[in-house]
């Protein structure tokens, strides 16, 4: 059974847990799934085994605490330590797919935006590859940082130890706002360096469309 099927089955089976056990198990599940460097297949397999175990235990009148102990975080860390790492060749298409998706949508939005704007005003469609690359790299780093930051905060908020949801939300908003400001400032003040070429709205729209279509076809083939 592959990871996707295991996740679906897990979602259904989890419904049969009583509220107390569900709270305990859900935190365990999120905590383990947040470690995205681990093999997804292995993670989902052991999560399913523990869910089955908990359900059997529940029927016998046991609680999650009886079965997995009073220290869910420590227990989860022990599990995580033993789950093999995800193979790199599985990780690269995954991350590559996300990046291609974002680029595709940005190109399409740019195409539509320039088409609309060009009806009212003159738009500069010249593109400076070097400057653009700098901004893209900065945005990529920023997004990566945000993902890690948010995952850290979620990981810390689990197991009812410290409930700081409000504070954490404010923190995330602040950091995101700062990052966006930086992106905009860099975009505004970065000088146009190196060669340039004309990149019309039509070319942008077409290229974006092709990119998304290719991703779609690859996904279809895999499924």
């Amino acid at each position, binding site marked *: *059974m592959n990871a996707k099927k295991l996740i679906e089955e897990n979602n259904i089976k989890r419904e049969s847990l009583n509220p107390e056990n569900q709270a305990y198990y859900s935190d365990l599940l999120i905590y383990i799934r947040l470690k995205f460097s681990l093999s997804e297949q*292995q993670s989902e*397999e*052991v999560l*399913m*085994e*523990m869910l*089955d*175990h908990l359900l*059997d*235990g529940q029927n016998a009148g046991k609680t999650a605490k*009886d*079965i*997995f*102990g009073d220290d869910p975080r420590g*227990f989860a860390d*022990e*599990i995580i*330590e*033993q*789950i*093999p790492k995800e193979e790199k060749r599985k990780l690269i298409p995954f991350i590559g797919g996300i990046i291609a998706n974002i680029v595709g949508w940005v190109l399409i939005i740019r195409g539509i935006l320039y088409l609309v704007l060009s009806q009212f005003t003159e738009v500069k469609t010249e593109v400076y590859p070097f400057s653009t690359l700098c901004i893209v790299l900065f945005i990529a780093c920023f997004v990566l940082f945000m993902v890690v930051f948010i995952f850290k905060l979620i990981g810390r908020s689990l197991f009812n130890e410290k409930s700081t949801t409000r504070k954490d939300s404010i923190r995330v908003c602040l950091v995101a706002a700062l990052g966006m400001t930086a992106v905009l400032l860099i975009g505004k003040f970065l000088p146009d360096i190196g060669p340039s070429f004309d990149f019309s709205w039509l070319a942008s729209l077409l290229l974006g469309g092709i990119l998304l279509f290719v991703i779609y076809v690859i996904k279809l083939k895999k499924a």
Partner: protein
Amino acid sequence: MSIRSQLLKGILDGCVLAVIEMEPVYGYELSQKLLNIGLADVSEGTIYPILLRLQKNGLIRGEMRPSESGPNRKYYFLTEKGQEALEVITEEWKQISKPVSELLAGRKEG
């Protein structure tokens, strides 16, 4: 941690392998068998990090198959490497347990 669970921790791998050797089991079954043998001092969940480690080291392998009660469960089987490891553990345990038992049994009452 109680003294007993500390002592048990070192030999639990061997116990898990020995139970699996008798017949392939899934997680819940394994924990119940350990309980029934009388090893009740570890929380049931403890077997999962152990099963993962034994799997990673190639001593056991897991396989999804229908259980007696119906739904699919991951059953664990002993591999050849696991068999060898169990022989070694058994031998080592004999060498430790005999002198320790004799030593502790020979204490003066009092």
